[in-house]
């Protein structure tokens, strides 16, 4: 394989991993606060739709992104209301949110199918993008990708080196302890669940405004679920979760390249199954790894509603 193909594959890898990346970073924060949001798929779809619709109507990509984040955050607040205050079963709430998101986006998005709207074009960063292979793959991308480059180290720093990050982590691990130390547990969970939704919405908008682009029913094809799997693969750490997203993008890129070049080594239907089988494989890998399990596990308070006995 020559350098040109390598650059191409790398570039596609990055592009294919973005949606999952945004969503998985968001879900890391949500789960770190102790809330399980399984509605990511539905939220991403609504984000994709609202982002596309807004950009289509206003011709402004920025407004589209903002709209997607607001819609994503808003839907996740509904989830937060039901899981945190109403204390309903978090799994079922998330599945209901997915159903609502999928149905609502299909329903409302009908008139927009096939329309051509605003889209992000690649914005090469001067100098950096001239670097062979890595440069042209990494620095000749759409704007949201650069946003992601900044996002990952920023959230890592936030999580481990700021007070708000420590509070967040503690709320997810032991809400009773955080409560005793004076931290507002419920408010914290609301905030980070909304943030997770905003990120998922952003990921969806990336799909409809940069990757695909356009609107199609159920265009996420399970990437929301894959994002949730990546949180586990990443052991709730933003760097590792981003790595998972990147690996997923890589599998996608391989599939794309093989199909584009009509290499019939692997039948196309198996290629299409690859991302999902890959997700199962890495889940198995991560839960099997004894060394890792002994040291790191899910936030101890994940999925359990918090009630201070009064």
């Amino acid at each position, binding site marked *: 394989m020559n350098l040109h193909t390598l650059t191409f594959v790398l570039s596609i890898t990055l592009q294919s991993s973005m949606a999952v990346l945004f969503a998985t970073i968001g879900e890391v924060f949500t789960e770190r606060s102790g809330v399980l949001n399984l509605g990511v798929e539905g939220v991403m779809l609504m984000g994709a739709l609202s982002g596309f619709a807004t950009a289509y109507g206003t011709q402004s990509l920025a407004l589209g992104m903002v709209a997607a984040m607001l819609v994503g955050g808003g839907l996740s607040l509904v989830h937060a209301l039901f899981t945190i205050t109403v204390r309903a079963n978090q799994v079922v709430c998330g599945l209901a949110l997915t159903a609502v998101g999928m149905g609502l986006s299909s329903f409302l998005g009908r008139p927009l199918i096939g329309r051509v709207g605003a889209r992000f074009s690649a914005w090469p960063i001067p100098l950096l993008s001239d670097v062979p292979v890595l440069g042209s793959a990494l620095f000749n991308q759409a704007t949201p990708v650069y946003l992601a480059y900044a996002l990952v180290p920023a959230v890592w720093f936030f999580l481990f080196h*700021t007070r708000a990050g420590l509070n967040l982590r503690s709320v997810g*691990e032991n809400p009773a302890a955080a409560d005793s130390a*004076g931290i*507002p547990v419920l408010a914290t969970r609301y905030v980070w669940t909304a943030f997770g939704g905003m990120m998922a919405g952003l990921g969806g908008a990336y799909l409809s405004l940069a990757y695909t682009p356009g609107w199609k029913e159920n265009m996420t094809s399970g990437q929301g679920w894959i994002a949730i799997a990546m949180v586990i693969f990443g052991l709730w750490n933003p760097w590792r979760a981003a790595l998972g997203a990147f690996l997923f993008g890589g599998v996608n890129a391989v599939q794309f390249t093989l199909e584009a070049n009509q290499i019939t080594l692997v039948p196309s239907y198996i290629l299409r199954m690859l991302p999902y089988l890959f997700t199962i494989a890495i889940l198995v890998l991560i839960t099997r790894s004894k060394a890792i399990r*002994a040291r790191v596990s899910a936030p101890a308070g994940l999925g359990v509603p918090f009630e201070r006995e009064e």
Partner: protein
Amino acid sequence: MAEPAICLRGITKRFPGVLANDGIDLSIGTGMIHALLGENGAGKTTLMNVLAGRYRPDAGEILRAGVPVRFRSPRDALRAGIGMVHQHVMLVANHTVAENVALGLDAPRCLLRWRHIEDQVRRLSETYGLPVDPHARVGELSLGQQQRVEILKLLQRNVTLLILDEPTAVLTPTEIAALFVTLRRIAREGRSVIFITHKLDEVMEIADRITVLRRGRCVADLVPADVDNRRELARLMVGREVLLDIHREPVPPGEVVLELRNCSGDDARGHPAFRNMSFAVRRGEVFAIVGVAGNGQAQLLAALAGSASFSSGQALLFGKPLESAGCRARDQVGYIPEDRAAVGSVSGLDLTDNVLLTTYHRFCRRGVLQRRAARARTQGLLARFQVAAAGPDALGRQLSGGNLQKLILARELSKEPRLIIADQPTHGLDIGATMNVWNELLRQRARAGILLVSGDLTEVLSLSDRIAVIFRGELMGILSAADPEAIAEIGPMLAGVRQG
């Protein structure tokens, strides 16, 4: 006495079905160690939770230096200088000591400089004699060390009133002595300490002032000098002459029901939990394993129950290897777990289902469950053991702690076991329920051998014929309860000094 630092006036707190605090008045002076004494269920923890901002009182007020204050959350109480170390550790197990101490501080504001925080932790721990490593993961520390972290957290926040809820339950005698030194130092600085306990000796040793609670009310407020002896305190606690000694007739020991030969086992993570355990339990005797919680008892019991395996050695149940023990053999073992609500029973199912929990094999005929017979049996057990419940259809969560333990006891004893394993059977029960359980266990000696695992010395000394002390997974020695000299050695053995 100088102006009281904190005053509680007329504090009343209700929970569904129980009046935990009934118009309690309490004055805490500065520079004092104030003991709050009462038996289990008297309302001590509830009262302190009100003071620490965790609960809101239904009536009454809190005065700080004469000014009424209202705490809407623990944060408000902490801001007012009141902090509490709870019975169940309120630390984040997966975080380090430094991360735990830093949690909830008002400063530094945004960015955390870990090195600075670690230095602070080291400085505080040296000053107050509370040695801990800031880098250590809290989950891997012993309970005694975790307690030190909790105290450091509060000292870091400069609390003026420190509340400790039953702190000595998880400490060895040496650690208890060290804790008392720390507390005296804290008091000398002008801070106040409230010490919740039900142990009379500690009260006499450490307290400057004693308040006794009974059934939600304050029944006495005195200084140690006023108290003639422990018996009188006990009477105040319970309201009647308490027989601190239980009547234990000797029963001739029979055949060996459980024997361990050089058994070792690991914990869930694969680290060794207990080593070279050798002992035998005979029918007719109560064999106790006493030790501070967290020294390998839980893992040993898990191996005996069959949910974990021994890594080496041989265990014999009724003379046959434990691993190959079939349903019938296991059916003759009655196991009373430590956590009666979360492990020993199912709160969401009814009492019949709860009785079936370990006896359902007997009610199955070709797969079909004979529910009617089980229900009748449950009804009988409720009556015979005087369990206060609405009936066999009541839910598990509707029973109080004492009644739940009675039900579990009834269930296990109805199997007519030849071996009874009782893990902290009276933990959290009041005196009445405790005596009940003790008498029942002693009565079973005619038919069974009893393995008692407990951290409560009083319980162990009252019930046992032979006592083994466990420390860091090993038995430090096996003593006969009849030998008065040997009893004196238990203290050092709990801290790791071997017998002999």
